[in-house]
């Protein structure tokens, strides 16, 4: 369970490093970096904060992960979750911010 920073997409805005509840992310040479991948709680705060989709979240192999990557796009009315699978395919789930959970 952790996150991965795609260096080439990262513009070093510092959004993710600011919000991590564990102070796990920091900037080095203008790019975000995680101190120790094992220390990530998986809250996805950094993923939602990133304006460039440069951080994805993945289920580690010990949690049953299968190599997928989870990104989030924050728009004013929806939170768009994008899942990318190892075969190159993609799945999107849009969550309406004005709608409550049904369960």
């Amino acid at each position: 369970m952790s996150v991965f920073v795609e260096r080439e997409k990262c513009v070093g805005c510092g959004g993710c490093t600011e919000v991590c509840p564990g102070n796990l992310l920091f900037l080095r040479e203008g790019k975000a970096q995680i101190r120790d991948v094992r220390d990530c709680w998986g809250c996805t705060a950094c993923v939602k904060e990133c304006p460039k989709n440069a951080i994805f979240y993945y289920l580690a192999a010990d949690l049953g992960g299968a190599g997928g990557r989870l990104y989030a796009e924050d728009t004013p009315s929806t939170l768009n979750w994008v899942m990318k699978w190892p075969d190159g395919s993609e799945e999107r789930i849009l969550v309406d911010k004005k709608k409550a959970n049904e369960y």
Partner: protein
Amino acid sequence: MKTLTKQADILIIGGGAAGCYAAITLAEKHPGLSVILADKANIKRSGCLAAGVNALNAYITPGHTPMDYVRYAEKDAEGIVRGDLLLSLAEGFNRVTEKLEQLGLVILKNPDGSYRTRGNRNIKINGENIKPLLAEAATRSKNVMVLNHVNMVDYLQEDGAVSGAWGIDVREERMVFIAASAVICATGGAAGLYLPNHPGSSRHKMWYSPFNTGAGYAMGLRAGAEMTTFEMRFIALRCKGTIAPTGTLAQGIGAAQVNARGEAYQTAYGNTTSERLFAVVSENLAGRGPCYLKTSGITQEEQESLEKAYLNMAPAQTMRWCETKLEPRYYDVEVEGTEPYVVGGHTGSGYWVDEKRQTTLKGLFAAGDVAGGAPQKYVTGALVEGEIAADAAAEFAKDRKTPVLPAETVERKKEWAMHFLQGTSAGANVASRSCADTSPSMGAAAPGHLWPSEKLPVYDTDSLEDAMQQAMDEYAGGIKTSYRYTEAGLFQANAHIERIERLSDFLRARDFYGLMKIFELKDRLMVSRALIAHMSARKETRWHSFAENLDHPGKDAAYEKYVNSRLEDGKIKILFRPLVKEGDTA
């Protein structure tokens, strides 16, 4: 070393649910008081609420009364609750819920505008942004100054009262001293004491926030405050692997617990929170595991709703369903117990407080998961408690002159912190260095030290944390022993914790993040030692799994009382107190 010194009427330590609400209350009701809110992270996403929550678990639904809630919590905890505290929380649940809606929280409504309920006590929300909403409101407040990334380490005391606290600014790499007339502690509970479900590459995939390390409990103990009911540990029953909440499945869609043979077993065990966990543990031990929540048979539409609900609070679960193709409408969801936590918002562990949430230390108030006596508090309870503590702290602060910090105290604390940076590149050049090293702690082999290697400690912070978690797991009722323990085992656990505490004084950090890790470990060790003393003192098994004492497997009426503790001369001293009912005062 760089330092920041501040003064305020009120210092709030921890800006989670309770701390943010205390700040909001102080802004609205006591605008003449100056307030500092210090959090180890940025309050936008700090604490338990980082990912979001799935429902408001504590709400008085139509046809019910606050007293009904007190009775429910009392029954669930087999009588060991503070009726007075619970009632004051239950009376405020609906008030703070309305406030949350005003702040922008989306709540599911019926066509007539009333809130849609889930079971008897829950209401349905979109809880993804609950933390940013609370943080925004706290930050907007004119008389509140928020200090993010400041990890508080210990209280300062003067004339028999708490007079502030000191800590370290992880971002600016400086020490922080705050003098205050009253202090509210709202640092949450303690995770990471025990070996977690996935100790390897997912060691922090736990239910409770791994960044809530029991700092408030440890600070209180070290300052002489009394604690209560640590032995009522909380162990969550969660979705396998992702540790995502199960309430959405169990209460939300009414999924039954079944074992590997498809048998619904719950009724054989009772239905309190600890019994639901104990049922899974027992079915597994009897060879009928794994256990599941029976979701197979739900509709495609229900499944899509579930996927969205989990994205709003525990995205890993949705990810897992999509990734493994084990869709809940075809496959039941496996459940497992987590490692044990000390957390006053779910069980009764925490500071012993009076009705105003003043601790046994004058000038120190506690709210939320760090305050004891009132289980089933949840988010709304933490908010109400933040409000009560804020009012009481304001009252206290009004009559007190703001304390000043003696220069000598500042020097002594600085020396203590410097001690852990000595011999490393950080110690040599703390002020001018920019954030550089990636590894949080340093051991003998770590680069960047200036000392000859024979002077360096053998162990690093991570390895001592591993040792602590292993001792707790094996001897103090962790996952390994299916949460069961004996007094002989607890004795062993204590010996290990004391050994590791001694070793922790020799740790070295190469930056302020590493320094924070050392303080976090020390806090966890302090809490573990108190926890062990509490578990040894309750010579009965009142709550299966939460406190499964194999030497005393039954419930004993002689233990219808609170187990409390204080640190005296470096030792945990146990004391017992009689039960306090609603209407009584402690």
